[in-house]
């Protein structure tokens, strides 16, 4: 049974942010923070890279719109051309409406699936859940995880540092 890391619980967001900053200053890199709601200050501290998901959304949208438009074009020009109300076969204005809706749908799916894939969800079993204090049941505390694989990680040292930074509970969690 290997050790996954140390989980420190803090009472409020400010304490977590301070602790994260402190740990970072101490050279820790393999960290993660857990909070019941997003804390934007952590992005810089944890060096969270800027996500490329917006590009996925854009590509998803454009692809879906183009595919649907192509399907429509194929159906009216190639597969079964029919004179409908004397309108041209390729009546682009109405077709754009459908392509637009399809684009939105594609973009939304790309975004939703993208965020799941990028976040590795669903992930029902995760080591952090092994921490007894880790729960959102009471609205959630604010947690800082130092992974055991961090080069600076020294079990007792790290634990002490965390406690000093205001952690209410620090526990070791198994992988």
């Amino acid at each position, binding site marked *: 049974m290997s050790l996954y890391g140390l989980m420190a619980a803090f009472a409020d967001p400010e304490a977590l942010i301070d602790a994260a900053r402190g740990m970072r200053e101490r050279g820790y890199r393999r960290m993660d923070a857990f909070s019941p709601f997003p804390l934007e200050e952590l992005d810089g501290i944890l060096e969270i890279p800027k996500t490329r998901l917006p590009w996925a959304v854009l590509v998803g949208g454009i692809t879906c719109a183009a595919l649907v438009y192509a399907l429509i074009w194929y159906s009216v020009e190639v597969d079964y051309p029919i*004179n409908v109300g004397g309108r041209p076969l390729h009546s682009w204005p109405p077709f754009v409406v459908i392509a637009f809706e399809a684009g939105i749908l594609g973009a939304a799916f790309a975004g939703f699936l993208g965020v799941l894939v990028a976040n590795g969800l669903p992930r029902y079993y995760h080591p952090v859940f092994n921490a007894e204090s880790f729960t959102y049941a009471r609205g959630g505390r604010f947690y800082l995880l130092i992974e055991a694989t961090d080069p600076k990680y020294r079990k007792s040292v790290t634990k002490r540092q965390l406690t000093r930074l205001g952690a209410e509970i620090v526990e070791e969690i198994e992988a």
Partner: protein
Amino acid sequence: MSAIAEKGSGSGIDIAALRRRLANGRDMWRSLDEIAGTVEFRRFVEAEFPAIAEHLPAKPNRRTLLKLMGASFSLAGLAACSRAESIVPYVRQPEVLVPGKPVYYATTLSSDGFGVGVMVESHEGRPTKVEGNPDHPASRGATDAVMQAAVLTLFDPDRSRTPLKDGEPASYGDFLKDIAALVSRWTASQGQGGALLLDASTSPTLAAQVDVLRARYPKLNVYRHDPLARPTAGQASRALFGSTLTPVYHFDRAEVIFSLDADFLGEGPGRLAYARDFAARRRVRSPADWMSRLYVVETSPTITGATADHRLAVKPRDIEAVAAALRAKLGAQAEAPRSPVDPTWMTALSKDLVAAGRNALVIPGAHQSAFVYAIALAANAKLGALGNTVELIEPPDTLQVDGDLTTLCEAISDGVIDTAVVVGANPMHTAPAGLNAHKAFSSLQLLVHHGLYRDETAFLSHWHVPAAHELESWSDIRAYDGTASLVQPLIKPLYDGKTLHQLLAVLGGQFEIDALSLIRQHWSEINDEAWRKALRDGAIANSAAKPASVTAPPDLGGLKPAVQAGGRIDIRFVADPWLRDGRFANASWLQELPRPLTKIVWGNAALISPAMAERLKIENGNVINVAANGVSLDAPAWILPGHPDETVTLSFGFGRKVGSVAALSEGYDAFRLRDGTEWFATGAAVTPSTNDMRVITTQHHQAIEGRAIVRHASLDTFRQDPHFVRKDAPPSPTESLYPDWPYNQEAWAMAIDLSACIGCMACVSACQAENNIATVGPDECERGQEMHWLRVDRYYAGPLDAPDTFFQPVPCMHCEKAPCEVVCPVNATVHTHDGLNAQVYNRCIGTRYCSQNCPYKVRRFNFLDHQSFDKDEAGSEQGVHNPNVSVRSRGVMEKCTYCVQRISAKRIQAQIENRDIADGEVVTACQQACPTRAITFGDLNRKDANVVREKTAPQNYPLLEELNTRPRTTYLGRISNPNGELSKPGEAIDD
């Protein structure tokens, strides 16, 4: 379930009890509807028609019965419409018959006893469609609305199927046994106490058979009961010329026509021919063309009055005064009587008539008094028209009778008659009010009834024998001009019915003889070749009556105007244009066909003038009590613009409750108020009540709202400005955002001449028959769910009391830029290469968006399951269906297709023969039926096509052209020809 039905359900039918109840009065029992819920009815259906019984709900309602009505329970080809998976060939294939190809037979249908020649389309021995016979003088290729329904009545499941003795099913053999006893009794007594009551008929064979019977039984009395009889032509000509003659008119020669209450376009045996000639004389396509002028004075609005250039509505009692005034104006009588008509009007009319001279024509109403009739004949003689526009012929009806129903009833009461044989007539429904025919007939020793239905009279009779339908019979009949026409069967009698000739032969002791040999015997003087030709043509060549040459006396042969009765209000009786005396009451097509002027369906109403409604403070549908001749009836009032004041129009044909369809309809029975066979009653009383009765109409809005929908002008205006249809009309858009679609092959199109349209509704009925259009029933009609693909709109313009009436047939316009097509989400309505706006029923999912977006509102939706899509479930009601047209299921949109099945058939034929489709080869059902040729159909890409000629007429315009839908159906603006000297009341024509 209706209240009526509930009343009856729960108790079994007991025939004896029914008869007892029936004995109490004429409307005691209602219909199949009443007994529909009973155990007996179910058992009956199950035993006779197991296939139907499966689909019969536990408590069948009116809708079910209507659906069952669609056609016969057990038609000949029942084997052929079994499970779709099995196919049944012939055992011996008839030589002329190729499965899949229709065969046409010439035959003749009777209309009030006179023949109109038809061609009947038959599919695998199943007659499905009636078309006019172009070679027949009374049809000239046209049909009317009623004739179209002949195929429907043929397959009517309510038809009587078995002989009945005292109401119980019996065999024909038993009947013959009883008749054999009668024959020997009559032979012994020379026919003493015997009476024969005949329906109206001009059959020469019948007349000959009656003569034979008379010779055999010298004491036999022959009566005729024709509730719609119009005997005055004979009376007037006897008074004037000393011989019984009847007039035949030639509208193709007439320049000025004056109708004295004659609805020559809508009624009478020659109406189709007259309408054709009349319209031909009013065809204006260029300013150089000329048209006749029609003056009408009438006692109840008719389609003839609607077509007139000058129309006046007068009370029935005033017609004689109008006639007398005319006589005075024409100089035959020095002193003009008091005229209800403006003298300037009369002066202008008489000047016009005199100017036209021998090309003038004065037509008396056939139902008018002999006095009016005689004045008209004398006027024609005076104008020199006799022999030109009017010819007098021997009446086609040569049967001599001993009296009418009244005489018969008197004879029965006097004990002179103890045995009566009723052939075809239904006196228990159509007897006049004062005559207690029921009592008289009940006292008969033996009453034999022969008829299509187990009707009111059949219920009273000791023996009822089912009659063969016209389409099942051999017979002969004369047309209005005396042409002897042959009736030949299209199908073997479905229910083993007998023709009237067979029945008369049986009475004469010939028990085994068939109708064909009786007819052939009568016409034995013509050889076999001529006979075959006559069968092919539908008429015996050169059998029309020769005109008699007569000279009119200076006086009227002693005819005097009738004495005016007291009271202010007159009643005008009319026969319902479709149901006639009620004999067609069980035909759902006719019940649901809007009446030309009122657009009322499934019932009748008491028509009154707007002024009278105002005085009585009543609205449409309020019940009024009409009392005359000591009796009264309640009827819903209907305000008809242009109706003469202080007059109530009551129509016959309704109030019948025998037959499941007839029972669905509402309305009153006007026979209950009628005295004798009079068409008028004076001194009536009208009392409004607080009740309402439902009157169902298919057009709720009558005004044209100032829109350029029906464009019209007088002939003078047209000559000044041939393009009058462009005047005051919204400009027609010439450009479209969309490029034009090429139509390289055919480009089907239609032109409808509004000047020629007389609103007779033949087109609508023909469309219904051709295209398997469902009837929906009164409740659905009331909700506005009727299905006619083609409707004839009727608009009024001008003053309420003397409006102009316009008819406009509206089929699908087949727009090139069809708004309906672009909104269909599933491509169920699209354009074809030849410019048809096709409707693909099997692709339709019923969003109804197309109808929402149709500015002409010509699409029709199957809101409910009106006819079953499923062959198995439909059972035998497919009998009348055109096999080349899909039967539409519930939830599907449908509309006029320009009879695409006919286009397809002709195209396939042309392509097999590797040629183009000729102009006039494709004829739509509406076009074919139209008596005035108002509808032209053809290919726009053929420069010589008729339709192209019509469309290049200056008065051609597309309906709602400002919407740029580019309709293929266009209209020719209506042109009338009013007399410039008369500022017509409510003149809306000259603008």
